[in-house]
């Protein structure tokens, strides 16, 4: 069990009376890129919220670097080295581009990523540093959201639907940056609706359907039909 960077065991999640996740088992090894695919409402974002502490669960349902973190608050989870790029980017509108990045670093974890390194990865953010974050295009906002997460120097990066609502060319450029983001040994979980995109950048994948893992395996080892069946449940 301790071989895994992240170990999610029999995770259940509820929104009031509604149960969103049913006994999810989900592992990430160090340096691995995992894709989580599934249709709307399959529970992908709920899984991300549970791992990042935005939803609290039983302590041992989420184990990170050998420690149970399932019951911790999001700020405590962040301090241990998990950063979430939330769905819909969710920048702070009152903060400038640069402030949005700096606030990611205030957790105090040091490492490879700094304001300068993020600017090297996404040069446009240096150019726009003093602008309000709301004045950026969708793709640039996504760069800020990713940069903000990197500034915390996480060991595990969770990317929730980073391509949602972006033009294909922008999505391409963001995914092109991905290898440089994780080359330092960071693990990553990518939630993505675009199956082929997700499988092309990941080593393993999990497919969720109605709150359960319907298929998992090495990326590229499954046929399209198998994935379709796991994805749509038909």
């Amino acid at each position, binding site marked *: 069990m301790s071989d895994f960077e992240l170990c999610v065991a029999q995770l259940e999640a509820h929104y009031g009376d509604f149960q969103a996740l049913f006994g999810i088992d989900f592992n990430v090894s160090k340096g691995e890129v995992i894709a989580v695919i599934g249709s709307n409402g399959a529970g992908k974002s709920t899984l991300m919220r549970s791992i990042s502490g935005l939803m609290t669960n039983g302590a041992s349902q989420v184990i990170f670097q050998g420690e149970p973190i399932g019951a911790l608050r999001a700020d405590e989870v962040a301090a241990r080295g998990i950063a979430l790029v*939330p769905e819909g980017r969710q920048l702070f509108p009152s903060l400038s581009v640069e402030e949005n990045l700096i606030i990611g670093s205030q957790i105090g974890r040091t490492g490879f990523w700094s304001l300068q390194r993020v600017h090297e990865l996404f040069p446009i953010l240096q150019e726009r540093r003093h602008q309000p974050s709301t004045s950026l295009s969708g793709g640039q906002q996504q760069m800020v959201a990713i940069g903000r997460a990197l500034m915390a120097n996480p060991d595990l990066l969770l990317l929730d639907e980073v391509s949602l609502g972006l033009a294909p060319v922008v999505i391409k450029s963001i995914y092109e940056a991905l290898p440089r983001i994780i080359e330092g040994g960071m693990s990553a979980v990518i939630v993505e609706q675009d199956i082929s995109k997700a499988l092309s950048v990941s080593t393993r994948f999990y497919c969720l359907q109605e709150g359960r893992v319907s298929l998992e395996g090495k990326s590229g080892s499954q046929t399209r039909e198998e994935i379709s069946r796991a994805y749509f449940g038909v």
Partner: protein
Amino acid sequence: MDWINSIVQGVLLGGLYAMIAAGLSLIFGVMRLVNIAHGDLIILAAYLGLTVATALGLYPLIALLIIVPVMAIIGYILQRVILNNTLSDDILPPLLVTFGLSVIIQNALLEIYSADPQKMDPGALGTASANIGGISVGLLPLLMFATAIVVIAGLQFIFYRTALGRAFRAVSDNQEVAQLMGLNKRHVYGLAMALSLAVVAIAGIFLGMRTSFDPSIGGGRLIFGFEAVIIGGLGNLWGTLIGGVILGVAQNIGAQINPGWQVLAGHVVFLVILAFRPRGLFPRMTG
């Protein structure tokens, strides 16, 4: 000359209102909490100042060195122990709880200090004045106004130039994502209330040096604070200063026309501005 004089006095009085309002505005801006007990906390600060100044034989303004940190600590504890538990999407619980707090503070002060009006002796500063262009301006009101400017400039600096201010704005924008950044919102809220009550301490001491006070007058100061915030526009600290000045001038002009109209004139001006500019003169915050 009487008119110019009352306008000048009104401007200076506006400084006090702005200090009362700044703390309210800060708390509302960061956590959408309307602190009904704000006025009573100001009176509490005035009584604490009186006690410390008398017990230690300190000049009231020197007592600020003690009262400001004491009120800040009270604010942090109050927020962490009580007010954080009332915050949710529903704005009613914090209203009710701070209203209850207001009643408790008033009665506790009444029990301890009795209903007799008290005043802190400003000494020579209370009667000293400067003659500016034929108008006699009291040094105490002048100092009060200058302090208000420094307080608001300081808050402005904290809000827009420091990590603490960044945390305030981030939590105000989006609590969930702020938590993902490692910000514990309960702690950030505690710090915001501490800062608010530090300003309350300054306002309380100046209020106690300027006029006499008794345990029941907090509510009235709260109204002036609210009016200054709304006139200036929600979320705009400099607007709050202007709001305070407009209120102070309106009251003094009202008093010039008829001594009984002082408070009424302030409320009327507030109502007129609210009718024509419901979001205040310089709104920064939306929604």
